[in-house]
């Protein structure tokens, strides 16, 4: 999973039938000091997060392992909203 921050949303009226009714959010990867990194994904939101929130994103075929995205054309899904991170290096 990657640690990311929701920086925007994507609106598509013309899209694959399996994506209908799904919220598409723009998520950029962040490092442990909360700096935005280059990679970004457009992920399906399954838990109702807003812009600016820190989330965990699953990519690849595991992204279809939720009730909401099973057998849908989805390869990136937001699976958790991060409350806090404890790091001890």
């Amino acid at each position, binding site marked *: 999973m990657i640690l990311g921050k929701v920086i925007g949303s994507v609106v598509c009226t013309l899209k694959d039938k399996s994506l209908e009714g799904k919220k598409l959010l723009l998520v950029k990867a962040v490092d442990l000091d909360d700096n935005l990194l280059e990679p970004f994904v457009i992920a399906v939101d399954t*838990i109702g997060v807003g812009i600016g929130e820190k989330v965990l994103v699953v990519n690849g075929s595991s992204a279809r392992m939720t009730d909401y995205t099973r057998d849908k054309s989805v390869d990136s899904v937001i*699976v958790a909203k*991060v409350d806090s991170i404890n790091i001890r290096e």
Partner: protein
Amino acid sequence: MYYGKVIGNIVSTIKCRGLEGKKLLVVRPIDMETKTLSEKFIIAVDTTSSGIGDFIGYEDGKEASWAFDPEEVPTDATIIAIIDKINILGK
């Protein structure tokens, strides 16, 4: 399987049903040759009750969710081993 070290954990109350009750740990991959921690990090679901500071083996990609089969867990990184020792020929 990849080699890494647990450097932290994540607290998350709002998450997918499949992740409920699962521990989310922050892992830095380790280069097997030079034994140096990578700059990058990933978040992995734990199945071995490892803690911060443990050296672990983790799987990524689709196989990561097979560790929970038949339970459906949306994860693309799962810690499946605590590694005690690595022997490399000639080292």
